[in-house]
């Protein structure tokens, strides 16, 4: 069942078109990675999902309800962490956490909150004005995970955290997933998306240009190969071969998945000594989309 459904979403700010066709679906119990460069429209999409911005056209539903007109109902069941957390400098982190939880209409689960505060190593008695960016983010994360939500909307939630804290964050996302909750995770940290997400959507210039599971997406793309052969080899001009590089002992290059068979047949003629292959990383996918101007599909 789809928890979040977005179809043909557009948004214009005056003359500027921020979104020109966003389609997304997040299924129940899945972690959906939402990636794209700065200014591509991630935060605008998320703000529309939160009912803070009104879409110019298109449909956006959470739990089957309209994100604009049923915002308050929806918000009782979601938790949100912004990338840039702004707090009230004269209140302590603990006070802000309690306020956010209460605003969602819930009682504060003190035990759960304490656990999170300890795991994230946050001092809740310090005034928010003295917190670093990472600590402000921890406040929002504790408030988000301290109580149950059916959908977590996380907009670059770990940009200020150290690797140790990022790991704690990942554990809580996994825990939510195990409990059948859904997560929309917008992130720049691709290793994090690779580790956590079942499905990924890539947005560029206000349009979602690619969605699918990581496996599916890899299928459409290239494989890294490294070979060492007895006879000198040159496939630089062969169709489907990219980034040809001669190394000390052998050659490294990338191959379009559909040309893999041709390439392997060709290589075998040169007496193969060593062959290594690696799946493309999300970073490769990502870079290809942005370098090639989104022309591939």
């Amino acid at each position: 069942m789809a928890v979040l459904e977005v179809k043909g979403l557009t948004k214009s700010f005056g003359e500027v078109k921020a979104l020109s066709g966003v389609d997304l679906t997040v299924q129940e119990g899945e972690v959906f990675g939402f990636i794209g460069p700065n200014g591509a429209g991630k935060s605008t999409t998320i703000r529309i999902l939160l009912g803070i911005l009104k879409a110019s056209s298109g449909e956006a539903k959470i739990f089957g309800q309209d994100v604009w007109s049923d915002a308050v109902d929806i918000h009782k069941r979601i938790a949100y962490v912004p990338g840039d957390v702004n707090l009230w400098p004269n209140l302590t982190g603990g006070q802000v956490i309690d306020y956010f939880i209460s605003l969602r209409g819930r009682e504060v689960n003190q035990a759960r909150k304490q656990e999170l505060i300890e795991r994230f190593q946050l001092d809740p008695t310090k005034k928010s004005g003295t917190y670093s960016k990472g600590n402000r983010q921890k406040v929002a994360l504790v408030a988000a995970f301290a109580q149950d939500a059916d959908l977590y909307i996380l907009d670059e939630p770990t940009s200020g955290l150290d690797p140790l804290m990022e790991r704690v964050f990942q554990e809580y996302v996994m825990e939510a997933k195990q409990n059948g909750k859904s997560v929309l995770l917008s992130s720049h940290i691709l290793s994090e998306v690779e580790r956590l997400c079942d499905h990924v959507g890539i947005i560029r210039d206000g349009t979602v240009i690619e969605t699918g599971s990581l496996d599916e997406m890899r299928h459409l793309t290239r494989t890294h190969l490294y070979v060492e052969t007895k006879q000198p080899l040159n496939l630089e001009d062969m169709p489907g071969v990219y980034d040809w590089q001669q190394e000390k002992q052998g050659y490294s290059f990338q191959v379009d998945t559909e040309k893999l068979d041709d390439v392997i047949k060709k290589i075998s003629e040169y007496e193969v000594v060593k062959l290594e292959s690696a799946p493309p990383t999300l970073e490769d996918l990502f870079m290809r989309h942005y370098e090639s101007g989104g022309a591939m599909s």
Partner: protein
Amino acid sequence: MTGMFQKIKPIALMQLRLDRVRLLVWIVAFIIVTAGTTLIFEGLYPSADDRDQLAASVVNPAITALLGPAYGFDDYHVGAILSHQMLLLTAVVVAIMSILLVTRHTREDEEDGRVELIRSLPVGRMSTLTAVMMNKAFTFVVLTILIGLSLVVLGIDSIDLQGSLLYGAVLGVTGILFAAITALCAQLAETSRGTISLAFTVLIVTYLIRAIGDVSNEALSWVSPLGWVIEAQVFVENRWWPVLMTLGLAILIAVVALYLNAKRDLGAGLLPSKSGKAEASKFLRTPLGFTLRMQRTSLIAWGIGLFVFGATYGSVLAETETYVAEMEVMQQMLGTEVSEGLALIEQFIAMLAVIISIFATIPMILAVYRLAKEEKVNRTEQVLATAISKTKLLSTYLIVALIMSAIVMVAASVGMGVTGVAMLEGDLAFSTIFNSIMVYLPATWLMIGLATLLVGIGKWRGLAWLYLGYSFVVVYLGGMLEFPEWMEALSVYEHIPNLPINDMNWLAVLTITILALILVVLAMISYSRRDING
């Protein structure tokens, strides 16, 4: 210890560059206000008789507490009037300017990491703070000279060169003193907010000690530097030693600040930053409780301020006749028919009531505009992402503004009522004065409604200030400049019945209340329909 002060010059020049517009605006404003009020005093009290009458009316405890003791009122010339009525309050504003500017280049730069960047360069550890102090010394010397010159060029007999320079110097050393105090606070507190509130606390305490001392026990006034500067008795005795004393204290404090600055770690404050509560109280967890808490200081401060404002006017009610009878300007402000005795006092009360109400509207508009500020600094987004509707969020700020309206209007009414009744020795009932101000409550609600609507549509917020300013001009200058009737009719305050001289007009008051309600409804609709920007 070598190299502690390296590269002061480029740092100081950079700070001056960053502040050039701010400094210009502040200094020009001080010159305009000082020279302008001097000319107004000169125009208001042309003859010795006028001034003697004024002297008689200002010698009372409320005025003494507010402005300090009057000197030379046996010959209360324009110079004496200026130094009595303007010097202390201007000095307080100079201190505020100093606090804000110094915090900007000390703790705020440190908090935002700019000092760290500078310190990573071959720059002395004391250089930034020394540069700040040098700049402030320079700024306030310039202020001293410019204020002095701008007073002398007015060519008023009682305002001579020595007195004018001393007037400027009193302002200048107050600025330098509070620059040093703020520099010290910046070493103690860990945040720029903390620095500002610490320095403001010092300012308020010195002001209050002086006020209490001046009224009850003169020795106490000597504890407060603000008490010293009044002892300069500018244009009367022209004493220079209080200026030197203040300067000495400033240097002493600056040295301590520099010493502490060199000793402490970057980013650390010497006062342990107070840790607060780890949990929010039941009250703070509700949107209304939260918003009230965020505006608590403002509610209390404006309440006290309006009480003092009302009490000050109340304390001069008994002198209405001397004020009005002799001054043509006052007669024009009160309108064509000037009565005598109690009727005149009532006329005066009616005029004061509308002026007080217009001033009291300022914090109400500010209370609503807090929501716009929250949006600007991207804090509404996280709140609206929770299960609170936009209309409820806006209503919360509206309710706080209404609470503010009740607090400030009651404070002003009680302040003026209590002192007025005491001064008039029972000639007028407390309720007469109280009602004359409270009747303006619906007009202030209309202003709140307008402010709410502007927050609702998310633009043109300056409009509320413009309208308020317009209403003030209509009341204050309307009689003098003889505006056409329709221009006066545009101000909502003109439609409130002038108690106690006119009868109560329930229809007008009710209509205005309903209009305010309509504005609020429109505000709710537009706010719930528009994009929230952060």
